[in-house]
């Protein structure tokens, strides 16, 4: 408990945990207003987000599947933020990566494993290129990367919409979609009837990879130092412009990869309305996860589970509108954003307990 490292980890976990609890309390109040059974709601929230109905039929598996792109776009945000680039371009990079993978999936034909690798590489390159643009704009022209990525997100969404509607359109069905990608390009799933598969393994590897990259490599060190203090980096001989561009390339690559995995493992094609805000949810996961790869991993899974439980589960079982589920998630985000409140109270509680435990000082003599 007194080991500062243990304490740091505890602090990192305690704050989001308290935030989630606060969100659940608010949810209870809202549910009471709707005159729905309170405890049943909680039970459904958890069983539909994280539970198993019977052996081999686990909703938690779906949660993990849904978490996969969130983990990757979350990591994308982590790499950018840690390097001092406030890029929210994950959505656009994700969409273009997905489009690239979808096209490579039906336009060329290659043997199994190789075809899948080509799709992922293509998506990574496209995502990285799309991340490079705001990076260079920032470094060479001083364009604010936040504004640049907002614009680039809209541009990407429209480009992909055009591609799906016209050049890549498979047929004249009401909902525009591209042809299904070759089986050789599809990612295997672990369980029949589920789409949880190789993509999740790639995401886990990416979590470890990003952690090692940021904290154990020279390049990662350069990026973090440049991100925390540009003057310090300059003083120490770190090229922060290069570090910023590199960060944007990696950030774009991760988001692009997320798009590829979503196409290869889940939808097998790209269709109109492919974007459901996964890039932004990843961004949220990154912030809630303390901008740390491990934090992103946990939060992305929690986030997906809550979404399934709160939006789908409550609606199907208790007729509670899915908007309420969204509201609860919104509250949790709000509470995490107010994390300072918890930190202060935790610190106060510690001080109080330290004093109680014995520092026999004179009583307050006011």
């Amino acid at each position, binding site marked *: 408990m007194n080991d500062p490292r243990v304490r740091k980890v505890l602090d990192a976990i305690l704050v989001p945990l308290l935030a989630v609890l606060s969100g659940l309390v608010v949810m209870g109040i809202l549910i009471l207003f709707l005159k729905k059974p309170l405890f049943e709601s909680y039970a459904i929230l958890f069983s539909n987000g994280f539970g198993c109905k019977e052996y081999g039929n686990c909703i938690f598996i779906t949660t993990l599947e849904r978490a996969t792109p969130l983990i990757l776009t979350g990591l994308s945000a982590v790499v950018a933020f840690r390097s001092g680039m406030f890029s929210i371009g994950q959505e656009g990079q994700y969409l273009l990566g997905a489009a690239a993978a979808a096209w490579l999936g039906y336009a060329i034909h290659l043997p199994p494993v190789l075809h899948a690798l080509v799709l992922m590489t293509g998506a990574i390159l496209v995502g990285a290129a799309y991340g490079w643009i705001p990076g260079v704009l920032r470094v060479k022209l001083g364009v604010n990367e936040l504004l640049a990525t907002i614009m680039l997100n809209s541009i990407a969404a429209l480009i992909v919409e055009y591609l799906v509607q016209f050049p890549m359109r498979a047929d004249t069905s009401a909902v525009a979609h591209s042809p299904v990608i070759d089986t050789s390009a599809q990612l295997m799933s672990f369980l029949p009837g589920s789409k949880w598969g190789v993509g999740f393994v790639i995401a886990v590897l990416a979590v470890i990879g990003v952690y090692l990259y940021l904290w154990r490599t020279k390049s990662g060190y350069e990026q973090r130092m440049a991100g925390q203090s540009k003057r310090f980096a300059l003083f120490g001989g770190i090229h922060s412009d290069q570090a910023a561009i590199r960060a944007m390339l990696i950030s774009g690559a991760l988001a692009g990869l997320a798009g590829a995995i979503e196409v290869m493992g889940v939808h097998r094609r790209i269709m109109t309305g492919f974007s459901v805000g996964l890039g932004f949810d990843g961004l949220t996961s990154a912030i809630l996860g303390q901008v740390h790869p491990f934090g992103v991993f946990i939060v992305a899974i929690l986030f997906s589970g809550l979404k399934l439980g709160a939006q789908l589960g409550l609606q199907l079982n208790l007729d509670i509108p899915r908007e309420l589920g969204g509201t609860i998630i919104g509250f949790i985000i709000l509470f995490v954003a107010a994390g300072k409140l918890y930190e202060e109270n935790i610190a106060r509680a*510690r001080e109080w307990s330290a004093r109680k435990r014995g520092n026999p000082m004179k009583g307050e003599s006011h």
Partner: protein
Amino acid sequence: MTPAIEMKGITKYFASTHVRANEQVDFSVERGEIHALVGENGAGKTTLMNILYGLIKPDAGEILIDSQNVRIDNPDDAIRHGIGMVHQHFKLVSSFTVAENILLGMEPQQAGFLDQQKENELVDQLAKRYNLPVNPAARIRDLPVSMQQRVEILKVLERNAKILVLDEPTAVLTPQEVNELITVIRKLSEQGYTIIFITHKLIEVMSVADRVSVMRGGKMIGTKKVSETSIPELARMMVGREVLLRVKKEERPRGDVVLDVKDISISDVNGLAAISHVSFQVHKGEIVGIAGVSGNGQTELVEAIAGMNSLDGGEFLFKGKSINDASVGERRDMGMAHIPEDRMVVGLNLQTTLDENLIVSRYDHSEFSRYGFLLMKAISEFAERVVRAFSIAAARPGEGISMLSGGNLQKVVVGRELAGDPTFIIANQPTRGLDVGSIEFVHKTLVEERDKGAGVLLVSVELDEVMALSDRILVLYRGTIQGELDAATATEEEVGILMAGGTLEDLQRQPEGSSQEVK
């Protein structure tokens, strides 16, 4: 005489950092006196004053004002009891005018609308009453630091403070501005104000205070009348041992030229000439001091030598080779070390660990990284070595440094810069804001490096420091070298007149001491 303030048995323990900041501290200040409160960084001076001002709640102890036991829970209580505080980092709204800042929260109103003209008149009157001229309509962000400080003082006076607490008021001022401030303080004390003056510059204590209290390690060591004490005694009380106020330095033969500065010109951030046509040399085994009032091009010169800034013209030769195109890292690899003037923002990254701070200039050496990966074990061993070699007691490898005191932070910087046995060291204001113990450490270290054969370029606005350490003194004035002096024979008057833009002939021409020609 009854004391204006008495603090008895003040105790404060910070559980989060395990620091006993104040332990049974007794402190009393008499009405109308100028009372200096001195101590090393982290001695508990600021904590004690924050308790007096209601910013921190003590664990135990009582506060008496005019012999009345009072309870001060927040700054509002303190102000009600006539206590005003001027913080080290000013708390002004930079986009507001002087008058708006002074009258913040107590503006004269007319049916809810502000009356700017009346505000300005009020502030004008206030400034006249205390003989502290300010322009009420000027915006804070356009004012020099000394003027901002004056606004802070007026703000406190407007709130009817009778007791003024000034937290290290001279740390941000130039020597001339310090003299002005001292005059202001004296005047206020003559008008019956009680002044508590936190500092660690003992020269200022001797020149302005009536009495002085010394703190060390959270305890009150003692209170003395300034007329009955001396700088060495106060230094001993502060540090707890004998302190060398002036490091011993022996004559050494100097070696080859290590840095040759040839006719360089540099512009500042606004594109104005900061340094024009400056040439000088630094040899191995000598300390070249650059004296000058701050803002005469020192920062630009130092950053250009270190490679952080580009040249408009001229050339740097380092060990005979041109380094105009060399990056910061290449210059460092050639044996250059740099102690920057701003350790909080430039010299250190307070958001990361000690280890990562220590490797910033050498993380890409084969010693600390291989195949692109950092060698974590080698790095933490290096951190332990530096901590031991420079006895940075409070710093622990693997942990953050944001909690360290100024003196310890500077030790981290100095330790990092000297760990690679550099042949040339730029030391820019290396002792700014440090207490006597830490100053002694930095001075001793720089002289040791010189004795080991390194060339040292010492840039300082502290005249004493330049005089005490340098072998040769160059005086920088408005971006040019106003003169060069041999430190062994130079007098303070000579350096002073060059710093003010005069020449040595001026000194001989004016035996009566009139200095009208000198700006």
